[in-house]
């Protein structure tokens, strides 16, 4: 294939067991779900995730037994389900190692990594238990050199002793995986709508894999470079994956899928039902084509297609 284009399965196979990864998107939008399903099919283990507000992207990886350690601010599909069900179980059963931050502090950490500096000061967290409590033990921190030796550091400004800030350590990951609307074989990336922290996550990763709804001519995106927020030099691999974020939304392309989300959340309440869900939609199907057939094929996908000028499906029934 030309330039940076790569097959989805080949791209997922680049991620080894134990890798550090950040995954793009925010709660209910633009998660690279097809890529995540491939990681589960590959049986990846001991992944180490960094994120701000992931949703079912992390939840299904955790439930799939792929994850050892996470650093995060939030894990849920918001109004669809206010706590990620497999995340909750993993914590309550002691099956996962994690550290809690806030969204701002996690995004500040990605930004520090992206800027090539060791930490970022924020005025948040002060007075909270996010400062006083640490969930990772000193031994757990010491066991993995990719974990910051300390969670954070509170200091008074050297320029004004009355001005207190919290320094949060930079994040550096081996992989960032994003799902976007458009990309090119040269690695030029177009994100439509909210960018979340995709740019910072990409810029603090060694290897950036972008899955895209559409592959377009590089000259088309270069016609409006101010709308391409990630420098192409930072993008290593590009995969064409239509409906690659299903059951989550992609602005201007399709809405989230309330039926699928409901089935996921209901299945996730029970271990056996959850295994059946994974069998039916992930490990029991060969690839993304098989997944899209399993969830209802073109009829289901057609019902989710975004309508202009909204960029979503204004008539979508969401309490199903």
């Amino acid at each position: 294939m030309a330039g940076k284009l790569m097959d989805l399965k080949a791209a997922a196979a680049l991620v080894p067991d134990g890798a550090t990864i950040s995954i793009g998107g925010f709660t209910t939008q633009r998660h690279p779900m097809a890529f995540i399903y491939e990681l589960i099919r590959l049986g990846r283990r001991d992944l180490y995730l960094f994120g701000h507000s992931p949703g079912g992207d992390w939840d299904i990886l955790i439930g799939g037994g792929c994850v050892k350690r996470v650093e995060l601010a939030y894990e849920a599909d918001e109004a669809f389900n206010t706590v990620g069900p497999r995340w909750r179980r993993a914590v309550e059963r002691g099956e996962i190692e994690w550290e809690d931050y806030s969204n701002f502090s996690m995004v500040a950490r990605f930004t520090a990594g992206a800027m090539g500096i060791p930490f970022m000061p924020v005025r948040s967290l002060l007075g909270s238990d996010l400062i006083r409590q640490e969930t990772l033990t000193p031994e757990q921190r010491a066991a993995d050199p990719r974990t910051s030796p300390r969670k954070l550091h509170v200091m008074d400004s050297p320029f004004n002793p009355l001005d207190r800030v919290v320094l949060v350590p930079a994040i550096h990951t081996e992989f960032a995986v994003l799902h976007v609307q458009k990309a090119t074989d040269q690695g030029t990336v177009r994100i439509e709508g909210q960018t979340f922290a995709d740019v910072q996550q990409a810029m603090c990763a060694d290897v950036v894999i972008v899955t895209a709804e559409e592959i377009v001519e590089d000259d088309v995106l270069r016609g409006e470079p101010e709308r391409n927020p990630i420098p192409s030099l930072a993008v290593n691999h590009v995969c064409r994956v239509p409906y690659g974020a299903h059951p989550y939304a992609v602005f201007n392309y399709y809405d989230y899928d309330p039926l699928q989300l409901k089935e996921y959340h209901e299945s996730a309440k029970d271990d056996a039902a959850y295994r059946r869900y994974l069998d039916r939609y992930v490990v029991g199907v060969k690839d993304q084509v098989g997944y899209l057939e399993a969830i209802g094929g073109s009829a289901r996908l057609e019902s989710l297609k975004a309508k202009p000028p909204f960029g979503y499906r204004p008539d979508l029934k969401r309490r199903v």
Partner: protein
Amino acid sequence: MATPRYTLTELMAVVAAREIADGEVVFAGTGLPMLGVMLAQRTHAPRCIIIFEAGTVASRLAHLPMSVGDPRVMRGAATAAGLMEVFTFVLQAGRVDVGFLSGAQVDRFGNINSTSIGSDPRRPSVRFSGSGGACDIACLARRTIIIAKHEKRRFPEKVDYVTSPGWLAGGTSRTESGLIRGGPSSVVTTIGVMRFRPENKEAYLASFHPGLTPQAVAEATGFPLDVTGATETPPPAAEELRILREDVDPERIFLR
């Protein structure tokens, strides 16, 4: 005119909306805050500006979002960017007038827990989603409004984990922690509205919802609640209910 019938969720949404003044910059999360801010924008506060942490500024919502990362928040937005732009240039820089928060537990100083239940967060009996942007909003908005279902166990003397700092231990403890602004101004619940005494930052009952008594609210609260001077919450107006039901949440996503 007879007061129309309404549910507690509808009443909470109306009370939340009334806390927003016209022209204010509002940082809204998913659920009741979105109902409140959409209602405020369609009634007394048409010029209020809605900020969503996932990266949009000044949306003119046409359809109720299910999340702050919902494509629906793009509708009519003046700016779409990312979390870092919103958290630094808007929130940390002091441009947010009011933030809405909620959680599993709220104490008498308005500290909120949305992390976990149990004395050791490493081994919680129940785990929740975690802070998200809540701690950041609690630290950096000019004031916050807390929305919570009123049950005794949700209003304990002390929360198990301070995810979002309120007035901390009361008095001047919030300022002493290094926080440069903000703090909760009110707690809107299913049975009343609490505010905080300026001198010691302790919660008191400002109003109880129609049909209840101040004593009933105090009994449903896990910390001693001063109910002196509490008045009845003004009920929702027919027009507020009509806008909520027909315009803001016709699908009954959050309204019950």
